């Protein structure tokens, strides 16, 4: 089933949680809503489910207007971050809840049992039907919650930070496993996450949100390779930002020309966004930007180097081969081989939140998805 949200707006007190948001999820598609906390992603998900009413705008299931539909009749499978299992019911009764609640064509009890067993098999929890939720681990609970949502054969599956409360290891396993379930069952699926790695790995399409608006909606590759806005660039992956000047179709840093497309940007100040792989160290004596090493860290097979360059001592991070010795306070030259230039006045994720202390540790924490948790 296709889900279409059109011009959804929702305000809490005076704050806009959703500001004229439109989104279409195609039939059978697996879409991630990605954004920092407060970006409106959960509100959008709950609005589509019918758990929240929008101030304006309409949600369509296929071509049916849902604004007059009761949530009970929508057939949404909703999975909550903290599972929301019925604590006083056994796993069996939790999963059977939706089937037993049916008024019309409620299956016979034996049929319900059979279906529950099937679902338990699907979520790989066979044999645990007699347990109470409190006797299960977090990952098992979330799988029961998913089985419970799947039991009603939902027309759309909505998951609100489904792995947010689990530890990293379990999260990775469940991620792969959810992808498999999706491929087997083919439900139209929309899930919310603040973990970019999760979104990029799991989803067919990633919708990046910020401040109640959609920043970009594209495939994981496009999101990473051609971020539409500085926000997307800095929220996804790691990035350094340095102010540059645009003139004559070229970007310059302290009057040194940087060899990059600037597109149709007007002359004047602009921001250059760089990923660590967009910068290399100059080893052949060619031209480059001089910088002073402030810190180095070993990351896997590479060495992550932070340098200060330019008159205003802007920080740039890049990766150097681990076998080249680099020490603090060393002077070296770097060359920009990638990155994107955005016009002035555009705001990235970090410039909003971490400007005061944009140290490499913060960026590392963000990259690992440690912030906003």
């Amino acid at each position, binding site marked *: 089933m296709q889900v279409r949200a059109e011009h959804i707006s929702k305000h809490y007190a005076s704050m806009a949680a959703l500001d004229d948001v439109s989104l279409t999820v195609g039939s059978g598609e697996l879409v991630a809503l990605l954004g920092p906390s407060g970006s409106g992603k959960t509100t959008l998900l709950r609005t589509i489910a*019918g758990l929240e009413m929008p101030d304006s705008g309409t949600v369509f299931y296929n071509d049916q207007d849902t604004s007059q539909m009761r949530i009970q009749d929508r057939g949404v499978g909703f999975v909550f971050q903290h599972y929301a299992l*019925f*604590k006083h019911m056994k796993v069996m009764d939790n999963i059977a809840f939706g089937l037993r*609640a049916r008024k019309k064509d409620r299956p016979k009890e034996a049929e319900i049992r059979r279906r529950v067993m099937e679902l338990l098999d699907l979520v790989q929890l066979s044999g645990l039907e007699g347990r109470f939720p409190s006797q299960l681990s977090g990952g098992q609970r979330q799988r029961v919650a998913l089985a*419970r949502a799947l039991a009603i054969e939902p027309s759309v599956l909505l998951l609100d930070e489904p792995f947010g409360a689990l530890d990293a290891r379990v999260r990775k396993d469940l991620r792969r496993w959810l992808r498999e379930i999706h491929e087997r069952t083919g439900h139209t699926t929309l899930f919310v996450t603040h973990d970019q790695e999760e979104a990029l790995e799991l989803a067919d399409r990633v919708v990046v949100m910020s401040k109640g608006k959609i920043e970009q909606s594209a495939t994981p590759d496009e999101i990473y390779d051609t971020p539409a806005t500085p926000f997307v660039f800095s929220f996804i992956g790691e990035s350094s930002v340095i102010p540059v000047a645009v003139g004559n179709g070229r970007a310059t840093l302290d009057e040194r020309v940087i060899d990059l497309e600037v597109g149709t940007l007007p002359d004047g100040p602009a921001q250059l966004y760089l990923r660590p792989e967009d910068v290399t160290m100059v080893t052949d004596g060619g031209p480059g930007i001089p910088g002073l090493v402030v810190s180095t860290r070993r990351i896997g097979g590479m060495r992550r180097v932070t340098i200060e360059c330019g008159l205003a001592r802007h920080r740039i991070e890049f990766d150097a081969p681990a076998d080249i010795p680099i020490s603090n306070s060393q002077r070296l030259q770097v060359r920009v081989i990638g990155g994107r230039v955005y016009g002035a006045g555009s705001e990235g994720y970090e410039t909003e939140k971490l400007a005061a202390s944009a140290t490499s540790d913060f960026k590392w924490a963000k990259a690992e998805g440690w912030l906003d948790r």
Partner: protein
Amino acid sequence: MTEATSTSKINKPRQTIGEGPRTRLALIAVALVFLALMLIAPLVVVFFEAFSRGLGVYIDALAMPDTMSALQLTLLVAAIAVPANLVFGVAASWAIAKFEFKGKSFLLTLIDLPFAVSPVVSGLVFVLLFGANSVLGPWLADMGIQVLFAVPGIVIATIFITFPFVARELIPLMQQQGSSEEEAAVSLGAGGWRTFFLVTLPNVKWGLLYGVLLCNARAMGEFGAVSVVSGHIRGQTNTLPLHIEILYNDNKAAAAFAVASLLAMLALLTLAVKTLLEARFAGSLAAQRRH
């Protein structure tokens, strides 16, 4: 040397939280003395006084027709007021904890009103509402219903006084549990009643039981408001607390304490039931709390 120090540290672990043994003993002693003086001593005195003139006087006091009718009235009032407040309390908590609406904090304050207002004042309010000079009183009297100085007035006053017990117990519990289980239930197709009886109610049943027991204890023991609206008609509108006061004022201390011991026993019974139920269902209680 360092080894010796570390061993002695293992033998005598330093407590990081808590007081020294002397302070702890003193604190425990203070608490016990207070408990004995304020809670246990009065209870002992009640039973001691009740039997001070011998078992015969005790049984006579209980067997008096006035005592019997007072006991009956007290049980009747509790039997009406407690279920009524069970329904009102659950409805109010459900509305306050699970929904957002205008005037919510006002409603919360209103629920606390019976706790804040002196029971005598509450009683007087009902006298003003249903008295001979009010609008409602004569109208109801024309229809043959007497509220004041009759059972309906006592029931209404008791319901008013005991209203907060169930709601006060449930609101924080429901708020803490949030509404995601209810949301899950409705998304799975369950209607309002089904969600309430299968999801909400089982989650709050222990809080509800506790609220009902407290409500019952107060309903049986309420004095001030009931005293104002009852009219003290012996054998007709006297509840146990009122009857005790009358006996006491008539210089029948032993009889008064005998009836008081009956009331105290009702209270102890309530507490015993609660403890018993908690022990009986300790397992499922723990399983739920672990969440």
